[in-house]
């Protein structure tokens, strides 16, 4: 049983790492602009799909991956410039619909450019299973976990230590005050969207060798990432990471111990229970009511 549990945990953390990265992307954009970006899952898909097609076109693997990340960042920044910035004064629900529209649009574009087929990426190193006791994992599982950890640390460093990072946080606290002290708010928003897209692309690239991808695979990941961000507490970046990992582990344990058919339902029951007890998520701060 303990061996089984260990295997469930490996599976849960691998899947959860992706949720964590997507959730972190949600949080960064939410913090910078108060927008819940429902096109976040599309970044994962675009990252993966562009890497696949560059690689298939003969670009050396590492370059294909790097270029795919850059392409996704450009898409993220374009999204901010063309769809979010012009709608600056829109209400929260309106921006939600805009990002939903954007996600449909990006999916439609992916469909036209890359078609409907399912694709995979080769693993970063040879696919020889590693055994730990009775549990097994692939090197790629380790890349997913390690890559996620690195990305999360880099994001923390960026927001805690660099001037730009702090400036973005300042925008999220008070946009007017930030612009008064000379911060270029629009540029900061652009950077925030770029970072968020970057995280999505990294998630896509890390996980596609295991999970495959197609033009419509961003939807589910976006949804799960949103769950991660909410579970952790909207606005808390470490909360999103914790929420993502937790969600992955709950799904895996739910499937392993209770019922695989109802595993997603189990995960949502847990989320609902958490929200009923802590209405602002695990690490979220209860914000004051606007009167």
């Amino acid at each position: 049983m303990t061996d089984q549990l260990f295997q469930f945990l490996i599976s849960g953390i691998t899947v959860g790492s992706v949720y964590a990265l997507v959730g972190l992307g949600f949080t960064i954009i939410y913090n910078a602009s108060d927008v819940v970006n429902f096109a976040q899952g599309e970044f994962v898909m675009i990252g993966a799909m562009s890497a696949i097609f560059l690689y298939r076109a003969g670009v050396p693997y590492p370059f294909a991956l790097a270029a795919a990340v850059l392409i996704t960042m450009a898409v993220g920044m374009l999204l901010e410039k063309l769809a979010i910035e012009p709608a600056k004064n829109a209400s929260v629900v309106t921006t939600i619909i805009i990002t939903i529209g954007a996600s449909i649009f990006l999916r439609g574009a992916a469909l036209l450019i890359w078609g409907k087929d399912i694709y995979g990426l080769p693993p970063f190193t040879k696919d020889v299973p590693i055994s730990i006791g009775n549990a097994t994992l692939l090197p790629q599982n380790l890349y997913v976990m390690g890559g996620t950890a690195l990305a999360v640390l880099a994001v923390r460093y960026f927001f805690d230590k660099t001037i730009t990072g702090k400036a973005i946080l300042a925008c999220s606290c008070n946009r007017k005050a930030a612009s008064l002290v000379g911060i270029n708010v629009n540029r900061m928003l652009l950077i925030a969207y770029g970072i968020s897209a970057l995280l999505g692309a990294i998630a896509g690239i890390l996980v596609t060798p295991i999970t495959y991808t197609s033009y419509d695979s961003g939807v589910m990941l976006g949804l799960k990432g949103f769950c991660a961000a909410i579970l952790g507490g909207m606005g808390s970046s470490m909360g999103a990471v914790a929420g993502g990992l937790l969600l992955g582990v709950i799904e895996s344990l739910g499937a392993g111990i209770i019922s695989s058919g109802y595993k997603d339902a189990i995960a949502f029951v847990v989320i609902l229970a958490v929200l009923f007890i802590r209405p602002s998520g695990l690490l979220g701060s209860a914000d004051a009511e606007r009167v």
Partner: protein
Amino acid sequence: MKRLAGFYILAAVLIATGLIFPDSYYVTVVGVTICTNAVLAVSLNLLMGYAGQISLGHAAFFGLGAYASAVLTTKYGINPWLAMLAGVGISGTLAFILARPILKLKGHYLAMATLGMGIIIHIFFVQADWITGGPDGLSGIPEITIAGLAINNDIRWYWVFGGLMLFTTWISLNIVDSRPGRALAAVHGSEVAAQMTGVDTASVKAQIFVVSAVIASVAGSLFAHQQAFVSPESFSFFFSIELVTMVVLGGLASTFGAIFGAVLLSILPEFLLVFEDFEVLIYGAILMIIMIFLPEGLFVSGSRIVTGWLKKREMSTQ
């Protein structure tokens, strides 16, 4: 009289189209879809527009009604009207139980909770195949009779759904204008302020949640009989999101806005068909463009622009 002017016109348009084009595909098929969506959008708008409570799980109540009718009539041979009542009972009770804890949540957390509720119910439809028929759904749902008249062709269904839409619109307009309705508006504006003036916001919100769930459930029951078939993906979270889109696209807190949004999003795919592979792309682009340039919704922003323009003209002619 003036308060209900829009309602009378809506009724007139509905009846006229039904009488003039009883055979048109756009009336009997698209028209029925429009009316169904309009009922759902108007009921959701009560919750979102007036009570200010976002819900990403409205399709679940629609589905509960549909499945209650489908299961009870096909598996147990129960009278369709009793089955519909059972659906109302199930949806209403569930909404009542969930209302307090769920509506205590704010903003995105509320969105998440309603989304979760919707998905859990959807998973039940898919997985509990011994009762719901699983992803293949249930077919052979019998037709209903209203006052001895069998609803067995498309135009009759058009009248049924048209009637339900008018009824829902009428209820919505009256709720908005009633005492609890004004309390609702207060809730949307500022909850604390509303509480200060002695409005029990929690109970008003809960009541509206139940009302909107019940309306969706009735629509679901009729939908099941009209389609003679139900399957889970008609009630997925994608449909919940589509409903929210209808409400916001038309204009929050406007009953006619919700109807307008429902009409637009039901007709749009029919027209986009000719674009084939470009359909998805164009659909997304249209959503974005409308919301960027008319952030308060087509109907609300649109009518504001029209009135502004008319006023200007009046001024210049005087």
